[in-house]
């Protein structure tokens, strides 16, 4: 059966928030928290005759000049922060949401992901304020919390991505 379309899904966020781990966990690959992504990695997956391509962006500051540009033509964006590092949450409204607006515009759907739920130490009040603000600035569809220690949280995230895209396409 031929593939109808290619859906680009960039995973963005600061370094070491767990972007690669989330993708690899969902795809059933071994995930560790310890290595950094150089540039980008691409992970294709076919579902319901649609090809999803997960773009795993290197989060290091050094790549910030080039990498965000690669978000263009995204069908949906997954913005990830680390629930144990407040600086990574702050980067979302301070840097990443601005890049989303600049490169993808206000219509592209975005899912905000708080990862490493097992070691969470950021208060819900602060997260909620950021979520409310992002909803005004970008097309933030939802906020979810994940941890690779509980695969169900990761599966829920990807099911949400599939549901948003596939329902939009009437699949």
């Amino acid at each position: 059966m031929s593939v109808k379309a290619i859906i680009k899904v960039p995973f963005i966020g600061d370094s070491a928030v767990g972007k690669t781990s989330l993708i690899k966990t969902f795809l059933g690959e071994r995930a560790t928290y310890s290595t950094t992504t150089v540039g980008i990695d691409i992970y294709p997956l076919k579902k319901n005759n649609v090809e999803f391509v997960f773009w795993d962006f290197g989060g290091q500051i050094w790549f910030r000049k080039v990498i965000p540009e690669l978000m263009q033509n995204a069908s949906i964006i997954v913005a990830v922060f680390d629930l144990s590092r407040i600086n990574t949450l702050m980067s979302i409204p301070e840097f990443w949401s601005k890049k989303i607006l600049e490169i993808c515009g206000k219509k592209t759907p975005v899912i905000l992901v708080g990862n490493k739920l097992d070691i969470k130490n950021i208060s819900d009040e602060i997260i909620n304020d950021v979520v409310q603000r992002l909803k005004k600035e970008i097309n933030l569809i939802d906020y979810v919390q994940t941890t690779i220690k509980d695969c169900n949280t990761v599966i829920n995230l990807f099911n949400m991505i599939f549901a948003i895209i596939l329902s939009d396409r009437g699949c």
Partner: protein
Amino acid sequence: MVEKKMLFFNCPVCKKPVVLNVETSDFQELRRIAIKHFDHILLIEYDMYATLRTLTTFKSVNINEGRKIICPKCQRVEYIPILTEELDRYAFDHGDHALLVYVIFGRIAYDIVDIIRIGKPTLPVKNIIRDIVEKVGSEYLASMLTEIIISGPKIIYADEEIFHKINELFNRIRILRRIQIIRGKYKIKEDLPLAYFKTVIEDIKNDPEYEALDKLNKQLDFVEKLIGTLEKSFKENPFRAKQILDSIKEEPLKAILRRALEEKYSITL
């Protein structure tokens, strides 16, 4: 196993080079440390390979009124201005630790991390890339790098006057170690898209040497990996490969990728 490694970067506040000797081991999570650098404070996070993952700057204030902050670790009282930006950061040096204060849309969050102090620049001003550029120009080195990325030659010629420096540089860059360098006249390949690496070289030639080499390493890895990704994607789905290439706005980079795909894999995108 504990290993000592060097971590280096340019301070984003005062632009001075910072070099740290850090101990790495098999820890999985990031190491976080605050650095009191002259009159400002930075937060760095690095991994088990001593790769710098994040670098965050904080404002320093010393005021006796404003919004009261009590350090959760030592109970010392500090103040930050009542009127702050919606997103703002302040840091306070509390001896053995730093109190990092985040203002996020009016709410306050804290971080407590160990602090070290650096008061003087520690790097000798040396950069092998600048030495090469001063002798033969950035186009010369850009031509070599572009040729290696596009055509993957096993041998490359380097002029006598620059031979040792090129040899030393290539030995210190992962992708370039496989190239054998022979003394001889090197002809700049003007038909190749040189603009990308020319800009890279110009950008890094005045950095501290460790940082410049690190950036060049990453830059070459990045381009080589992109070529590999495009080639793999093309085999699986040419439309996806085109989508990836179209996402790249930077024309000089695109030109290298296109040329490399043509020369190495006979792929036209």
